[in-house]
């Protein structure tokens, strides 16, 4: 690889040329983790992610290139966009898990795929019913209770997903088990939103 500006050699996955310090295009091998120099793992220190996000934003944001050449402005916009997209995905455990599966070639939620979960149907109906009831009564306390219970379930799902990722024995069912939990998490997220916005 060589720099578009000074033709000097550049290292893959770096934002700036080592010789002329010009911003470089996003490389094909860069993924959301490598943008932050973080290992491809589910476990992640949120404080560290935020610190690196701020640090990289300070270098790459288009505001730093407002007066630069059009090409540099375009590259900065590309890089900052990608950084923000990566940050959005990595900071949310559901998106992070789905992204790790996708990197492993298992795009469980791509292209309108939905996960079938017949055993969960019964439980869904119960949640809906209690939500409708609390709403009809205008019972704020019941609603916040529902939200709290759904949050509790979400925390449990996150812990389970984390355990799957940490398990060195990776079976093909593992993917299904994680996908099932992500699909359920989506459901509990809606419950929380509905209960809090009611």
């Amino acid at each position, binding site marked *: 690889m060589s720099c578009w500006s000074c033709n000097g050699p550049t290292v893959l996955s770096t934002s700036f040329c080592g010789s002329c310090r010009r911003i470089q295009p996003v490389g094909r091998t860069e993924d959301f983790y490598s943008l932050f120099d973080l290992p491809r793992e589910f476990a992640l220190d949120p404080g560290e992610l935020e610190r690196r996000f701020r640090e990289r934003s*300070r270098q790459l944001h288009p505001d*730093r290139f407002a*007066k630069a050449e059009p090409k540099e402005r375009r590259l900065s916009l590309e890089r900052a966009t990608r950084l*923000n997209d990566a940050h959005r995905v990595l900071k949310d455990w559901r998106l992070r898990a789905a992204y790790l599966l996708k990197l492993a070639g298992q795009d469980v939620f791509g292209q309108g795929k939905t996960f079938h979960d017949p055993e969960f149907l019964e439980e869904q109906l119960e949640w809906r019913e209690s939500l409708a009831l609390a709403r009809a009564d205008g019972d704020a306390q019941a609603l916040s209770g529902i939200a709290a219970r759904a949050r509790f379930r979400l925390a449990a799902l996150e812990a389970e997903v984390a355990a799957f990722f940490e398990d060195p024995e990776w079976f093909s069912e593992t993917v299904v088990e994680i996908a099932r939990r992500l699909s359920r998490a989506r459901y509990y997220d809606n419950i929380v939103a509905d209960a809090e916005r009611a």
Partner: protein
Amino acid sequence: MARAIGIDLGTTNSLVAFVDARNRPQVIPVDEGRLLLPSAVHYPPDGPVEVGASARRQAPQRPVDTVLSVKRFMGRGPGDIRPEDRGISRFDEAGQVVRLVVAGGRRSVTPIEVSAEILRVLKRRATEALGEAPGGCVITVPAYFDDAQRQATKDAGRLAGLEVLRLLNEPTAAALAYGLDKRMTGTFAVYDLGGGTFDVSILRLEGDVFEVLATGGDTHLGGDDFDRVVAAHLMARGLTPPCAEPTPAVLRGATAAAQRIRETLSSEPLVEADVELPEGHRLSARLDRAGLEALILPVVERTSGPCRDALRDSGLQKVDGVVLVGGSTRTPLVRRHVRALFGQEPLADLDPDTVVALGAAVQADALDRGGRDDVLLLDVIPLSLGVEMMGGVVEKIILRNSTIPASATQQFTTYADGQTGMVIHVVQGERELARDGRSLARFTLKGIPPMPAGVARVEITYAVDADGILQVSAKELTTGLEQAIQVKPTYGLGEAEVEAMLVESIEHAEADVTERFIREWRVEGERILSSLESAFVVDGELLKATERGAIEQKMAGLRQAMDGHDYLAIKAWIESVDEATKPFAERRMDKHIKMAMAGRRVEEFSEKARTTRTDEEAE
């Protein structure tokens, strides 16, 4: 190097500020020596357009020809006009965008043109104060402005001959001014209640990065609503002779009286007034603070929902501080309401009227210098962006409160055998159904090769830039040919125009490249036009009237070419302008060399330029 300026283009008042040589942001006096330029534009049936306090004074006598609070109509269509707006202004509702009928019915103007009049005055005052045309500007917008409103604001800037470096959200601008002034760190809520818009933003300030975590608001909520309810109340009680359908003149007079009474009640417990209104009416008013508060309470309470939503979306339980912005936050009831909402005493140490402009100036200066040691702002998109699916349901592609710039892609396929076109309807908002959201653009992607249903792969990419403005591109993947098109959704742009652009790009494989050339040459054209305009201001006296006329003719040609889609035409016009200005450039060079040799300083020259301009204006 010309200095960049920050502009607060407000519903009621507008301001311009810059960062001085000692690194302090300063507001430039603009209107009869005052810092605030009333956002009022008067279009008389004959004679020049008036802007500012003099225009606002015309409002009661010439209600239809005087446009106030034009910001409410930015990026809006005739269907968005509210019943309460119809009492005073007259509209031309034939087109896609709101048009106001002014100048005694002789002109119809868009909100973009009206805003550009205000911006031109600010630019002129800034040019006088700085001694040269500003090098670029940051214009603030309510955080809750959607894509169409942002686009309209940017267009107004361009129309006024300004290089818009960035659109900046008003609460973020205020936070920037506060943060720098008070050296704050932690989490903050900015509660911004202006004349016509309400915004709330939750920010985190850490390590020289200002990160907006969540934002919310209402683009039709502000001090204007206070005045309207107070005016309606006073007219129902004390209008003599009473009238069921008040004329525009009476309404304007009563609204102005309501505003004065309301402002007086911020410091006095009781106001009694007998006001003369146009057309032989009188308004006798008696209102105490409790009465006022009972009237405006429902309006103030409408700010609670957005505040709670924003706090929840930010993921925080509470914030470390609350900052008040906007003239309407001077109202004691508003302050009490904010204190109750956030459970703490709000900060108001900086003047709520000027803090946004000061923050805009700081940001303009930072952009201008591209400085790496300045603070950085990370803002978010206020409303989700989606696409309409079968059945009118919206599929959200970029969620609200995503940090910008941001992008996301979604794949679609055909639902009929041999289908060669696909309608793409771009929608902004949180509602589930497309008809409830704001329609940004609707276009048909044509040229998909015929194949069985479900085989074609069309990838739609949404990309939001740092101004919060969206670009949509569509790619057909199955043929291996990546045909990319860029659509800049502009509210009111005819479907036929957008479609024509798309068909063209699908048909010609290099179309995306062409589009980029057009953009690049437009930028170049803009740069040349604005640098010539600044040169006219400083060295205009070097040209005879006929010479200047000839140059201006070429500039008009260039402007026209820049509106078109032929980049070769733009290039040709640029060369032609260049040719026409050669003698002018040579004389300027001579003059500046002579000046330098005579030991005169550039400041003296600007001084002279300023005097000349004032003379022109006096004529």
